């Protein structure tokens, strides 16, 4: 076993782990008021990881650690976007956390551990690593939700998240054990080969698939496994909600792709039928429930359910276009949700959460620029041109029409129309209502710049989506279909 051949593909993860441990120690030594050093170290670590990931990129698919780890273009692209997303989460939430006494080393270290878990999931080629990566991510997130100890609602959210998450992990493990029983392997490639050669026990395979899909649906938060999403999004501190609602979606996309496409491609006929049910139910219940919400965090939670359902449409259509558009949709969704939660934190102050719809009333009079940014983000979430949300929806719908599921595209468009109502309602509140309070909005230079980049980025990517779309298509093509 050549040591370097194993270490080089995973260099970014090893660096991330080493730096996280270092930060853990450095943070203990630092005084309470100099947490900025920890913060700077975390940002430097993310930068270092990006450089290493780009530096160790290879044009072909590389396997390491006895085929447990895979380094391909899709994993590299997703990892770099996840570093970027995590960096944005920390910049957005710095001021918010400071005002609530949560700007501690533990928060940042747990965030880095969550990132490590996501990267392990993104590069996993074995059920064991997929599961361990998922647990690493989930365990860090459970703790982060509960960090605000004095808030009863946060503790309740953490408890619900923990119990339902454990249940989902159990379902997933049960499904994996059945697939192991049916195929005799836990490695994705070997499972795929075994199924293609014919498996004696078809019912075991089918049961395994159902359990795995149920576990996946829990983690993605799609109907009927969505009950935890609104409560957790609502109860967690907004910084943690932002973390849960943005970057892990990339890992969830990779997780779904690795299991369903790389491992169980031959069962596509079976799982695409189940995904159709999940997708339609998510779009229906997500959109209809979001209309009734008065809390913006809950509304965005239902909107996540809808978006994840929409993303699944890409998996149903399949092929480079289908998976590529699903990846594009996930990346775009991450950007939009970062911006939307970032806006909630920008408007919040010490002891005040701007998380109800009423807090956005008349935002245009208080801060026209922020209102404009929020309008761009909401238009993008609703899928209205010229923002990138339109293009993301368009590419998914395009791929699904090409595979002949025209009725599914019509259903998706109908529900998107219903969904447009609650996004446009926020724009109406910001521009046509009078503000309830005139407290000045204090925006730091870093967060102000970031929200501008985020909002304008949504517009810019919508005007020229070609580059990102082709990156997604090429990486999916290289990673999934050529081996």
């Amino acid at each position, binding site marked *: 076993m050549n040591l370097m051949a194993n270490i080089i593909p995973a260099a970014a993860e090893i660096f991330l782990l080493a730096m996280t441990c270092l930060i853990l120690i450095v943070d203990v030594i630092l005084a309470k008021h100099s947490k900025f050093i920890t913060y700077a170290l975390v940002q430097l670590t993310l930068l270092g990881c990006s450089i290493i990931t780009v530096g160790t990129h290879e044009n072909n698919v590389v396997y390491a650690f006895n085929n447990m780890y895979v380094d391909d273009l899709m994993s590299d692209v997703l990892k770099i976007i996840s570093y970027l997303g995590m960096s944005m989460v920390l910049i957005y939430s710095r001021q918010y956390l400071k005002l609530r006494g949560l700007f501690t080393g533990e928060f940042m270290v747990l965030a880095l551990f969550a990132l490590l878990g996501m990267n392990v999931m993104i590069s996993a080629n074995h059920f064991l690593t997929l599961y361990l990566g998922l647990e*690493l991510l989930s*365990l860090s997130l459970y703790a982060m939700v509960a960090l605000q100890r004095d808030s009863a609602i946060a503790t309740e959210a953490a408890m619900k998240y923990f119990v339902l998450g454990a249940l989902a992990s159990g379902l997933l493990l049960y499904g994996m054990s059945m697939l192991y029983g049916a195929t005799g392997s836990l490695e994705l490639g070997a499972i795929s080969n075994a199924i293609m050669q014919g498996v004696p026990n078809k019912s075991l395979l089918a049961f395994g698939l159902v359990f795995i899909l149920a576990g996946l649906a829990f983690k993605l938060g799609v109907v009927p496994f969505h009950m935890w999403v609104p409560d957790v999004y609502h109860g967690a501190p907004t910084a943690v909600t932002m973390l849960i609602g943005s970057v892990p979606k990339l890992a969830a996309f990779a997780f779904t792709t690795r299991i369903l496409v790389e491992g169980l491609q031959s069962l596509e006929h079976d799982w695409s039928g189940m995904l159709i049910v999940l997708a339609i139910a998510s779009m229906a219940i997500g959109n209809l429930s979001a209309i009734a919400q008065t809390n913006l965090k809950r509304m965005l939670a239902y909107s996540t359910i809808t978006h994840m359902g929409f993303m699944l449409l890409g998996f149903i259509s399949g092929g480079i276009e289908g998976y590529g558009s699903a990846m594009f949709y996930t990346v775009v969704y991450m950007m939009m949700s970062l911006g939307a939660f970032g806006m909630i934190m920008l408007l919040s102050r010490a002891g005040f959460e701007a998380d109800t719809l009423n807090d956005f009333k008349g935002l245009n009079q208080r801060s026209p620029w922020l209102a404009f940014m929020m309008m761009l983000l909401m238009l993008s979430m609703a899928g209205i041109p010229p923002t990138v949300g339109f293009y993301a929806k368009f590419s998914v719908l395009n791929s699904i029409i090409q595979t002949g599921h025209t009725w599914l595209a019509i259903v998706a468009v109908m529900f998107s129309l219903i969904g447009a109502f609650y996004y446009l309602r926020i724009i109406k509140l910001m521009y046509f209502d009078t503000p309830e309070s005139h407290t000045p909005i204090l925006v730091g230079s870093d967060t102000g710049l970031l929200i501008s980049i985020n909002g304008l980025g949504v517009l810019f990517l919508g005007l020229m989506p070609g580059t990102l779309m082709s990156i997604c298509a090429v990486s999916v093509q290289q990673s999934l279909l050529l081996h």
Partner: protein
Amino acid sequence: MSFFDVVFYLFAAITVIASTGVIVARNPVHAALCLVLAFCSGAGIWMLLEAEFLAIALVLVYVGAVMVLFLFVVMMLDINLVQLREGFWRWFPFGAALAGLMVFEMIWVLGSRQTADATIAVVHGADYSNTKELGRLIYTQYVYPFEIAAVILLVAMVAAIALTLRRRAGVKSQNIAEQVKVKKADRLRILSMKSEPKQ
């Protein structure tokens, strides 16, 4: 029926009876002790399968550490059982239906008896060390997942400390170091007073 089968069915029966005891026992301490018994007989079954390391780890870790901790928690907390059992009959049909579904499914899956690896396990000689083989695999083929598992334990540690270690204001606790360092001047104030004249 060979001796092997007799021992297996004996352990299996004890496991099933003890597990039933865990859920029907009225006293939580009895339930915890039943769980200990179930773990011990489970370890016996693993021993039959020549998985000595797992059997010993189960006894040492679960029976020795986890269950003792659990017993402490059960004894220290005042658990109101009446309150816990309140919704039992209301939810019984739902739970029974779910359990029935699981049993049906297991019979379906296991009844077909066609798994990929349905061969009988190789029986090794007395000089074969299960522990050594496990160690060799963990540090070679499975080193990557093993390291991730280690990181998960680290996260659990960080999370446990982050969630429980905090200084609350207004807590009346002793500070031994301060008590030891105390000087006479900190506690005692000597006043010079004029003595009162005798009456």
